[in-house]
């Protein structure tokens, strides 16, 4: 199984020259198993996917963790949606009085977008995520609600013996420096438990976080503590704050790594990178 990172940025896309190291596109990854591919989140990173080369099949699956703009903005310009021969399955969280389709339609309709969902040419199948593990091809997917404002899930994606956990927006504990000591009280613990790769929110430094408690994001420190607690094997720090230049982000990471003492690899996510799981 491979993971390709198409967008690693949080909040909003940036084309600044200061943000080219880690990339300017917002959240989107592809999980790849041979010819099978699923797309997770539809930030502006989705626009970098080569649909012509890699998506011969009629069906395309896009999983959404939540509907904040940095996770759906690319959907509006996603090529397969405008191909009448494609069947696009969009999976996202329920948990709201309004259906997923109605919530997506708020964005994909005038005045924010020229056409409405019902006029999109592809065959759109919009499905609220079930409360149980479901399969797409050989991928077994579990979605669970995690700590972030509004209905938000994390995904655990298993293929064969390998597992990837994706939590781009997650505040595992609110306003505390450390996780609760008991595993069962840690948001998202089950999703991440013993994953081969954990892709996790790390938007802030420890100091910044204390001024942004409850905003739904975490620090590098808490992401690493979460990974360690969940016994995940590899941590990819995700959802970079576009308010930081990449040089600042690198320094923040290096400072953290000088103090950190973990026995698993920790890296900053880089747009365009592929990770073999």
């Amino acid at each position, binding site marked *: 199984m491979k993971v390709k990172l198409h967008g690693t940025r949080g909040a909003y896309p940036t084309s600044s020259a200061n943000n080219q190291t880690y990339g300017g596109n917002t959240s989107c990854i592809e999980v790849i198993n041979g010819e099978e591919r699923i797309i997770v989140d539809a930030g502006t990173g989705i626009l970098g996917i080569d649909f012509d080369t890699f998506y011969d099949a009629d069906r395309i699956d896009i999983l959404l963790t939540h509907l904040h703009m940095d996770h759906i903005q690319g959907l509006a310009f996603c090529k397969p949606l405008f191909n009448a021969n494609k069947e696009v399955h969009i999976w996202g969280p329920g948990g709201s009085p309004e259906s997923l389709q109605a919530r997506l339609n708020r964005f994909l309709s005038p005045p924010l977008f020229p056409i409405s969902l019902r006029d999109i040419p592809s065959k759109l199948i919009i499905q609220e995520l079930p409360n149980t593990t479901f399969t797409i091809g050989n991928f077994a997917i579990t979605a669970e*609600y995690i700590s972030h404002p509004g209905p938000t899930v994390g995904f655990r994606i298993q293929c064969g013996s390998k597992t990837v956990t994706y939590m781009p927006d997650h505040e595992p504990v*609110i306003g505390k420096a450390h996780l609760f000591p008991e595993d*069962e*009280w840690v*948001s998202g613990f*089950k999703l991440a438990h013993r994953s081969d790769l954990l892709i996790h929110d790390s938007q802030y430094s420890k100091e910044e976080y204390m001024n942004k408690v409850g905003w739904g994001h975490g620090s590098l420190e808490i992401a690493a503590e979460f990974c360690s607690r969940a016994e995940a094997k590899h941590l990819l720090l995700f959802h970079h704050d576009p308010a930081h230049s990449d040089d600042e982000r690198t320094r923040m990471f290096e400072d953290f790594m000088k103090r950190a003492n973990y026995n698993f690899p920790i890296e900053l996510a880089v747009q365009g990178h592929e990770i073999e799981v």
Partner: protein
Amino acid sequence: MSAYEIEIILSRQLADCLTVPVFLVDPEGTLIFYNEPAEVVLGQKFQDTGPMPVGDWGTSFFPHDGEGKDIPPEELPLVQTIQNKVPAHKTFWIKSLKGKSTKISVTSIPIIGRSKNFSGAMAIFWDNEIIG
């Protein structure tokens, strides 16, 4: 490996920030968390007791009515919320380990998250001597 639903985890975080006693129970009625102010009511620390079955916590603070008659666990608001999945409220007396009776009001609410599953209940205790 088991883990609580996010709405239960966030309820604990809320309870952790409050100065009023809060109990959290799972759908079976097991007391899965109580905050520091509730430790004063129970006379025990959560880190010492861990989760407690309803039969234990329901009697450990000696709930009784104005005439000193014991209130059985099934009449406590939190137990009623667990049984009926609706909010409940009751004013009654509890006795501390030192034998002092205190008049309290308890409001309990069911916790039903986005998955629409009944995950447990939360009870908030009001000390009527302080607020009255």
